[in-house]
């Protein structure tokens, strides 16, 4: 029997899928369970096999291959890559191989149509990845397809001032206080994240960068997507287990009353199911130390603001370089 999510998928696939529809915070993903959100995402990605991948979705496909542990999503990403033709390059080849290896012991058949289908007519998720790999030509030239979406955001000081934060020790401050006066690496995460290649790795790397930072250098801050669950005690334990050097310049925080504002302010790609996060991207920003005049940021701004630049989440992979 087709479920509600099947009907939603049919509706979305009636038109060519856009990169915007793949955002984890897209309205159609709100309220879905994690499994349903992944199923929908798999179908949206798979639709690129025949329709081609829009430019603004290339990095999404690459990021899924790089970090997802969902067999369905990876199967969809594998099908999407086929639209790029056999000469897409060694980078995609590596991503596909890593993904196939990642799910080798968690493989399942992926159903693209509702109802009972014989396994003989289906491929497993790993089978989809390997089938795409077979279509690629070896030693093709590298393609710069995995560049992260760059973004520059302006953060109004009065809006930041309204965001009350609580850190891992229960100390209360505001987002304006912690961001102003120092350059800050800002990451988003949540402690219930089930994918070790996302939040756990992000905080581990952020901790390493914070340890490598010189006195008086950058601050390192991470804010939870799940403020109702991530109490100060949970934040402290999560950070401590990852060697996070807590201090004035290194904190894990939550906001209990202004989360919707923070999501909107940073345009966070995070979606919510009935209880907690159903899908999220890796989000990393570098926030400048001081106010920047309106003319330097963009049109329409009439007051000075802080500037946050979106970073490639893997920028933290080398803690020494990231600390510079």
């Amino acid at each position, binding site marked *: *029997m087709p*479920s509600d999510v099947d009907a939603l998928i049919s509706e979305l696939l009636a038109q060519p899928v856009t990169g915007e529809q793949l955002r984890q915070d897209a309205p159609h993903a709100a309220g879905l*369970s*994690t*499994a349903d959100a*992944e*199923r929908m995402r798999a179908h949206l990605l798979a639709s690129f096999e025949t329709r081609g991948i829009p430019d603004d979705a290339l990095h999404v496909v690459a990021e899924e291959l790089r970090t997802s*542990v969902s067999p*369905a999503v990876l199967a969809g990403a594998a099908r999407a890559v086929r639209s790029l033709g056999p000469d897409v390059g060694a980078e995609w080849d590596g991503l596909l191989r*890593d993904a196939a*290896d*990642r*799910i*080798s*012991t*968690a*493989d*399942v*058949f992926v*159903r693209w149509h509702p109802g009972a289908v014989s*396994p003989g007519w289906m491929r*497993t*998720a*790993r089978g989809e990845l390997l089938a795409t790999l077979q279509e690629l030509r070896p030693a093709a030239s590298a393609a710069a397809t995995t560049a992260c979406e760059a973004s520059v955001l302006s953060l109004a000081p009065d809006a930041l001032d309204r965001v009350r934060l609580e850190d891992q020790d229960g100390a209360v401050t505001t987002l304006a206080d912690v961001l102003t006066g120092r350059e800050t690496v800002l990451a988003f995460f949540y402690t*219930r994240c*089930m994918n*070790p*290649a996302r939040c*756990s*790795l992000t*905080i*581990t790397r952020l*901790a*390493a960068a914070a340890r490598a930072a010189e006195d008086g250098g950058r601050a390192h801050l991470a804010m939870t997507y799940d403020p*109702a*669950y991530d*109490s100060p*005690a*949970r934040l402290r*334990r999560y950070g*401590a*287990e*990852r*060697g996070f050097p807590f201090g004035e310049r290194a904190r894990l925080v939550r906001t209990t009353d202004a989360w919707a504002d923070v999501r909107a302010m940073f345009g966070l790609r995070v979606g919510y*199911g*009935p*209880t*907690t*996060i*159903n899908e999220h991207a890796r989000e990393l920003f570098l926030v400048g130390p001081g106010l920047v005049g309106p003319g330097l940021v963009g049109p329409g701004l009439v007051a000075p603001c802080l500037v946050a630049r979106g970073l490639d989440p893997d920028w933290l992979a080398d803690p020494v370089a990231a600390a510079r």
Partner: protein
Amino acid sequence: MVRIRKNANALTTAERNRFLRALATLNGSASGRFRDFRDMHVAGAPDREAHGGAGFLPWHRIYLLDLERELQRIDSDVALPYWRFDEAAPNLFTRRFMGVPGPQDRVQFTSTNPLRGWVAGNLPGVERGPGVGPQTLPLVRTEQQTLALGGAPAADFTGFAVMQGNPHGRAHMSHISGVITDPGTAPQDPLFFLLHCNVDRLWAKWQWAFRRHDPAAARSFATGSTRAGHRIGDRLWPWSGPLAAPRPTTAPGGGAHGIAHDGCPGRESARARHDRLPRHELIRSSRVRVRRRPVPDGRCDAMTDETDIEELRKAYVAELAEVRRARPRPLTARRAAEALTPELTEAKLEAMLLDADTFDTAVRLLLDLLADETAAVEHRLTALERLGGAAFQPMRFAPFRAEFVERLRELAVSHDKQLRYLALDRLTLDDDEVGKRLLRESLEGTRAQLVPPATATRFLARDEHGDAAPLFRELARTGSARVREEALRALAADPESVELLATISTDKAERPKVRELAAMSLKANSPERFAHVAHDLVLDEEEDDKLRSAALSALAFTSEAADALDNEAFQADLDHMKDGTTSRTLLTSIDRFAKTRGQKPPE
């Protein structure tokens, strides 16, 4: 201090209680270092480190040692006991020790057992099937059969390592259902650590019997191992392993940060040594220590001097050689195919997974048997159990895994209720999308009931993201008694239910059992909120003594909760309470709180 790992079935009461207290304290509310141990042993990339090749035995050796060191930080006298799974263990499977399975596979403990407040993952309690009771002799290879696997009198590690399937995997599956039957969830059952302690003991005894401690000797380890993480010189993830592909790129504790111990026995030692630790140190560091113990009839089952030790070893190897000669012949592919007949016997099925060279053939055959609707239900149940055991070797099982899951999805709607139950149990342990959807439809009434509603609720609660939380909130209000209990337990993962759980915990109109369940869910959900609820419960003289005792006991073993209280004032209240109560259960809990809080492990 020399500590000896003993047979859990033979521990003294004092040894047992110390071990249980330390284990419950480490567990707490399943966060902190306990969470590390759980997260190291999960599906995905970590699974390949733990179970994906020749490193299975060394990996679990340091895993247990790491856990044991944590227990010793809590109580320095504690050593990890072992469950000898080829023998009945009447003293182990009791309510006072590892508990006995009750309704809904819920393990029952006495009111003073520290494990009564156990938190598995996000949920309170232990789920374990009814397969092993006090008198059960699990159908696994015996110790001698296991030690003869690598050959005798000359033995080879590669042959011995087959024990990963049987007895190891079979010991897990001997419980039939529950978290211990799946590699990704097994550490959620405290018995898991005792099971693996025996696996480690078997390897240590094999090393002693065949003198296989020298990592340079070809037969001590799998020299042909090529998989990263399983070669003799590789470092072990996550203790000192590299956080780079193809190994896992992250680790519980962010790599070696939270881990203060190395892989060799002894007190805490330098991190630097730990960071250099390669796998062969684990092989070298496992010499069996034999205690002097005179035996009445004059034989030695232990040693009196070096010469006797060597004689004993040789005699033992000779015994193993006899066992080796008497082993059943492995099935060839042809004979295995012939076995799939209506007259298929249990003995033939048993023979299938015996030897490495028949693994693929046997798994193929078992999958066919599982799919065969004309086969006897008991044979299909056996096939399901054997395939579950084979899944404890994930890399070997990987080519069959997707088909196994597909078969389980089919069995989830089978006409046979036992097959349905076991298929859904396994699917939800693996967080399978289809299994969860079928259960939701069953609970919501949009398809025929697949399992009783309480069971469906329990299975769905395993989803750590708590996607069915709105349904659980509804069931906690409106469900039948059993469904309601399962729903309250499931709400341990729902932050929006903190107040609901607190309200039920303190509602004197509710049954004490329900209130205790709500309180334990609250402990897992919000230890800080639980602390205040438990404080008031314990000090209310009109409350049920067992409930007060359970709350106080849970406080004692959950430092993140107890730290939220003013301990000095609370202790003074407890001292006053002690003078005024005659309840032995309560007095035990008061003493335990004072003792445990006095031995708070160092930060």
